[in-house]
Each structure stands twice: as C-alpha cells, then as structure tokens.
C-alpha cells in the first residue's frame, strides 16, 4: 500500500530537517490528515512504526490531527461538512459537491532533540 511510500517520504523529510536544523533524534511528529486525503491514518501510523526502525525517528510519537472534510454544494450553494467523497449535501440532498477542505496530508511540527 502507498502508506509505506508516505511513511518513507516523511522519513526523508525528517532526515533533511535533521541536517538543516542539526538535531539527532525526533521525539514527536505532528501530522494533519484530512478525512478526504489519500491516506488512512492508522495504516500510516503502522507503516511509520515499521519504516522508522533504526532511523533518527525510531520510537517517535506520531500525533495525527484529523481534519474534517468540507465541501461547497453546487445545488444550493451551501458550505457543508462532509465525511467522505461522494457524500450528498446535508442541506439539499444534492449530489454535486466540490471539496473545499479535508484533503490535507501535512507535517505540522516536529519535536526534536
């Protein structure tokens, strides 16, 4: 699954930051993952635990903030909360929603030593 690629992409960024900011160890990583992003938070946490073994981030806490999905309804013009892609508009029942939020896959901050 691509969660392993994402975990590796995260580790690559951590290694680059370690060089830039001169730290030896990552204690905590805070991510923001949207409900409509291309990643399952639990699968990512598992992949990170496996992929980080023997790296500067081994044993680091992965703190995942889940960002809610948001969309704009083309039917009634409302801005609404959505749980997944393909949801119907909770206001008018329409099926044409343009996603406006919750696609994040972001590294917010690191705690390092």
């Amino acid at each position: 699954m691509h969660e392993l690629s994402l975990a590796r992409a995260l580790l690559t960024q951590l290694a680059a930051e370690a060089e830039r900011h001169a730290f030896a160890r990552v204690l905590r990583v805070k991510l923001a993952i949207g409900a409509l992003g291309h990643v399952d938070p639990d699968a990512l946490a598992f992949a990170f635990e496996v992929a980080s073994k023997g790296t500067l981030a081994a044993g680091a806490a992965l703190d995942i903030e889940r960002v809610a999905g948001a969309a704009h309804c083309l039917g009634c013009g409302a801005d609404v909360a959505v749980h997944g892609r393909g949801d119907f508009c909770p206001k008018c029942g329409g099926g044409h929603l343009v996603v406006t939020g919750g696609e994040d896959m972001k590294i917010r901050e690191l705690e390092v030593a």
Partner: protein
Amino acid sequence: MCGTCGCPSHQAGGAGRAEDPERGRVITLERDLLAANDAVAARNRERLAAADTLAVNLMAGPGAGKTTLLVATITALAGGVPVAVVEGDQATDLDAARIRATGVPARQITTGKACHLDAAMIARALDDGIAPAHGVLFVENVGNLVCPAGFDLGEAAKVVVASVPEGDDKPLKYPDIFAAADLVLVNKCDLLAHVAFDLERFTAAARRLAPAVAVLAVSATSGAGLGVWLDWLARRRARLHAAA
C-alpha cells in the same frame, strides 16, 4: 520565512519546554507530506510544457484495457502526432513491448513492490529524452484504482479508464481516483450488450466525485467512441500550445 534555512517557518519551542530534558525543541513545518514529489512533479510539468508535450496520466484497475486503448490510439493517430509511452507495472516489460510493436518509443518502468508511479520515475524518463516535442506522452500508471491517485507526476491531465465488466459502481468504491480525473473513459463498451452495466448510473456516480467531469464510452477493440477521445486529446494539445 525562516532566516536560517529558508523554510516557510520554523521556531524554537518555548523556553520552559527547552529546559525540560523530556522535551525537545519544536520545529514548525506546515509542509505537505508529499512536498518532495510535488516539487519534482512541478519541474516535470515545466519541462513538458517547454517541449510542448501533452502528458496524459492513464490510471485504471488491472486489465481495464489501458494498453489496448493506447495501441488503438497510437494506430489512429498514425504518425500524424509524435507519441511516446511510459509504461508502469510492478513487473515485466510486456506492455512496453506491445507499444513498441506499433513503432512508437516506449519506456518500461518496473516499480517492484510499489503500487504507483511517482514524479521522480517520470523525471528519469524525461532525462532520457522520452518526451516527444510537440506531441503526446502517455503514461500508463500501474494497474491500481487506489494509490496512483495521490501522486502528481507533472502530467497535464489525469484520465481514469474504467471498463464495462468492472461494474458501474466503481466510482463510489474508489472515490479518490475518480475525484482526481480530468476525463473518464468507459472502455469495453462493446460488452454493454452482455453485461449489466448502466452507463447513466456510472456517469452520475462519477459526477458526484468530479461534478464537471466528461465521461466517454469507448471500445479499444471495436474502435467505437475513439473519435471523441481523439478530439479531446486534440483540444488538450491546442490548449497547452496556446498557453505556451
């Protein structure tokens, strides 16, 4: 902007925290997880635009007919437009060989365990000069309706190929990839008479994910609908050319 390293922002943690031996300093990044891939993809997009090459990322489940459709498309373009193909599969160069048999250059990328192509793989193919100037570079992604959706390659358009035997419920089952589509092709429409597949139901489902997306029914084997697909490609080439 961070003065030390040029990253958008970073700051040391609060004084109290820094003194706590259990706590480290905090570095604020606010950066996309796939920032490295996205940067390479942006560079690919620039290189392709500079060469006036329309890059089309074809994404579909295994066996939807991507390679057959490419062979039919190349044959229909019949030397009028320079074409090259990048083939992504976990293993074998069977698909690249099928493309080369048409006389068009093809570069096979085998991804091993990876379930999708990424921008760096395409960058290496561009380094080798695969992109035909003033032409079309087709990228056949690894047969997979999940993972390719998240990885920008630097393409000008993402085309999702579904096929009639897969059933008309696929958009709702694999929403991420359909949400990313600039065009949806429904291949194997020659089988509509034999399979319970409701094209209207499929189209309605796809539009719940991408409200403005065009859905074209085609058959790579009978040639039905290929003209509309070729027209779409011609429009996208003209648009890219006009933007240059």
